[in-house]
């Protein structure tokens, strides 16, 4: 299991290959990649991601460990960036490997649902006009946790 919190970008293809090479007897591998997209009204210049360094790694490891136990994963990977990102850049990825596809999918969705609402990151949208808005947590995202 690997959890990385980093400012630098990551190479999706290389990470996927490395992860897939190490999963042993798993029959199913799922990856999720989050990409900075434009603001709903357009004009997003950058996304600034703040985090709580002393807590982040610990929180992500707790979430990944829970997923690994709950779905008997062969392996799990979480990479999450912080700092200033522009539209099109990749923010984060997760990968899961399990014997069966249902488990790999569920575990990846679980990781994402918990990352969204329980990992100490905060996003600020910087618009081209200079306006800056903290992204609000969505009621949908909080509600998604009830599934688990």
């Amino acid at each position, binding site marked *: 299991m690997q959890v990385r919190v980093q400012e630098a970008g990551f190479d999706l293809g290389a990470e996927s290959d490395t992860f897939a090479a190490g999963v042993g007897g798993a029959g199913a591998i799922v990856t999720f990649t989050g990409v900075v997209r434009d603001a709903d009204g357009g004009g997003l210049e950058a996304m600034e991601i703040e985090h709580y360094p002393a807590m982040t790694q610990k929180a992500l490891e707790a979430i990944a460990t829970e997923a690994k136990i709950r779905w008997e994963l062969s392996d799990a990977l979480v990479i999450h960036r912080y700092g200033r990102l522009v539209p099109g850049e990749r923010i*984060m990825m997760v990968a899961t490997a399990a014997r069966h596809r249902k488990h790999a999918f569920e575990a990846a969705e679980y990781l994402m649902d918990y990352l969204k609402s329980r990992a100490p990151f905060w996003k600020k949208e910087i618009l081209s006009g200079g306006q800056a808005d903290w992204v609000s947590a969505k009621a949908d995202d909080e509600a998604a946790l009830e599934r688990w």
Partner: protein
Amino acid sequence: MDVVYFAWVRERIGVPREQVETSAATVADLVAELSAREERYAAAFADLSALRVALDQELSDFDAALEGVREVAFFPPMTGG
């Protein structure tokens, strides 16, 4: 006790981290004490339902006791992923 702030809580209070001398028994007591101290705290803590708290880097709640806690963090609901 170290108190740290993130996102708009940090912006409203104006510092990312500070040392606070307090004998507050719970998080709620600490919030009341800071809010009484200066307007910027009162503004940041006006709506507790919009805030989250972590004690020594573990999510907690406003009723939690502060005894033995070294770092309290206040921040808005998280928006990772």
